[in-house]
């Protein structure tokens, strides 16, 4: 809306024809039961990497995503991150389209909200911390 100025960048939905169907990863991980802290760490890095890559002239491939994640995470092994990226594609958090492009799905945001909720319930704020 004009009056509001900069708005939330909406996730662009890609049409089904362009989607590359996710393949079963060579090394499946139990994403459901991964610790919420680790999930949050990976997903936040994912958000950051996608944002940083915006406007980059070269196509955003899984390989480049792994490179960026590794660099941002302080040198985590690329092979290990490749496994996570493959699994995130498989679980529908990242979408891959034909002209070698990666986009994040709504699932990333929902998952992050769920993680926050889970951690809040697990460790409710102490009374003295409250204003």
């Amino acid at each position: 809306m004009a009056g509001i100025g900069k708005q939330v960048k909406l996730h662009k939905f890609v049409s089904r024809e362009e989607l590359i169907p996710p393949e079963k990863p060579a090394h499946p991980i139990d994403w459901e039961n991964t610790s919420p802290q680790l999930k949050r760490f990976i997903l936040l890095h994912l958000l950051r990497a996608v944002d940083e890559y915006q406007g980059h002239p070269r196509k955003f491939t899984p390989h480049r995503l792994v490179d960026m994640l590794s660099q941002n995470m302080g040198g985590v092994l690329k092979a290990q991150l490749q496994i996570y990226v493959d699994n995130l594609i498989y679980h529908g958090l990242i979408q891959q389209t034909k002209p070698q492009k990666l986009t994040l799905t709504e699932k990333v945001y929902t998952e992050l909200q769920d993680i926050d909720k889970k951690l809040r319930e697990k460790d409710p704020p102490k009374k003295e911390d409250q204003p």
Partner: protein
Amino acid sequence: MPEEKVKGVFSGAPLNNNYQLEDKNLSDANSAMAWLPEKITQEKPVFKDKPVILIPEGCTLFFKKHEGVEYWISEKRGFNSYMVQWIEKKGPQTSKFHRKLSSRNGLDVENKKRDQSLVKYLHNRSGIEKEEIANYLEEAGVFIGENRAELTISPIDVEDTHLFPVEKEDPPEEMPREISEKKRTQLIKILEKPDILSFIDQALYERTPDKGFIIGEVESKHILNFNCIGARLGLSTINTLKGGSSIGKTNTANVVTGLHRTKKVGSLSDTALKYASDLDQIDILYIQETLEEEFKNKETRLMSDDDGGFVAETTVKNPDTGLFEVQKTTIPVKTLVTTTTAIELDPEFATRNFIIPVDDSEEQTKRILEENFRSTEKKLQEIRGEIDFNQKYELLKEAYTLLEPYVVLIPYEKELLEIFPTNNPRARRDSKKLMQLIKESALLFQYQRCRGELNGEPVLVASWADLAHAILLGGPILEATLTGFDKRLLEALPIIYELIEEDDYVTTKSLQMRLKKSSKYAWQILNFFEDNGYIYHDSDTKREYGIKGKAKVYIKDGAREYKSLLLSIGNIEWLDIKKKEEEFIKQQIPNSTHQVGSHLHIPVYDTTVPNKVVYHPTSIHSREFKIYKKKGSKAFKKAKDDSENLKSEKRNDENDQPLKQAEDADINYKNLNLMEKTILTALTGIRKYTLSSLLEELKESFTEDEIRLTLGDMEERGWLA
């Protein structure tokens, strides 16, 4: 199209299906309910020492004479309901002063809502004590109950005696109780939707192509709709949809006013107004097109609330003396809606007006074209019965009948002072407009706001969200009214000022680069502001900075510095406003269990949905409420000062405490900017950070000021522990 005309003019289903639009221009004397014939009075029953006036299927009872005016109440039986109305008699003239109230039972059966309305109508009109009116209604009810059989004359008698003219029914005011409980629940659910603006958007869009629909025009349609709701509940305004020809002004006005009780007129002359006896039955006067010179007419101008309505003077011949006399009639204040292609409006009229610009952008044209070329597809869907196009529109129209008038209290009035420049006298009227929009938003969202009663008066507490609606939706419209700027200019001016602050001057080239538009566009914009005295070319600055060639170097003219209303949104302390609201409720309406929400739905264009607009739930903590905060070097310098708190009180570098993400933080991950993402990724990692180590870590990507500013913001929002 007569069908459309009828549909668009009145809300609610008139009980009498024979009602015709053409029949409503009746003078008061033509209404049997308002007519008190004297011939039959001697033989009829008496109430309060006055004869009861019998009318077909009903009667009229005397109440009292107050300050030279007699007040009567009239009850008439309809097809399956009773209609009740107050009548006043001043000398030989009788007139009604509110819409008929319809309810399932007559005055002999108590109907709390109807009786409260009756008390209110008369109290407001005459100043008679509410208690006295309520007692009278009870007394009249008992009398009618005991004498029901005698208190009517059959229509056959009327035909025989020709005592009564055939009455043309006005549509009665729908009492909410007449709607079935199931339907009522359904309608209330609509009014309880936090994203009711989205529902309205869809209702205005999902219409058959030949009935007219609205796509886009987010601010225009919502503000017009707010003002129409205000009209229904007693807040009147003048609204002019302004723009070039064939860009959809009439369509927008038709579709929005169609949801409300509207009378369409061709012109607004003294005589036309005087003889429009149905003005009491409608809320909105819709003048289809107003020409430039017509804006100078007093009639249009004096219809504003400030002026207390318009006194029409017409010449009539006195039948007794045969001489011509001037007769004065006060036309009640009504909300006016009109459209115009005029470029300049009479300034006096413009200040009293909501000038609603119609979107003439290329994007909007594209949206409309796409829709126009889908008309066959839509028609087929309608014929096949796949989509009920008008369903949401009709539901909304009915839901509006459930809205009640309230006294709206604004807990944060004082804070609004900050928004308006005191050096502009127009701000006086514009501040009123902002208040009006806040009240109207609260009235629309009344099922979601804190409601209560103070001294028997129903009150509604406006929320911070209503202020946000008023500024976000009404801002561009108020700006257009205040300055005459269009959208492009409004967007460009803060950028020009920002460039001047950063570089001490602005040139076509620097503006072009910042706007990412053509140099001609940038030149036109700078030219406009130079012509209007907001900036001027300064040769000294050009020399000082060694700028060669023909380039004009502009600097700011301090005298004309423009303070944008929209810019102020970032300067409003939204959390303080919310706190004020909560404290106000606690103090004024102590029994209330109302919880003040922290989200509102903000519209954003989205090409993937049919109506091209989605309404995102947005938290008061989100960046959306800081987007207009000044950016650039000066803002960061200020931010550095602000962040001194962060530095000195809690996290000063000497006492460097660990930083981490608060577990109870409510973060909308969709709205994060890159720096927030970077800080959060750092804080979720294994390594523990303090302020200084974080500054060190991120110094290659961001400046220290930027990091401190963002951390300050994040802390304020409760994201950091």
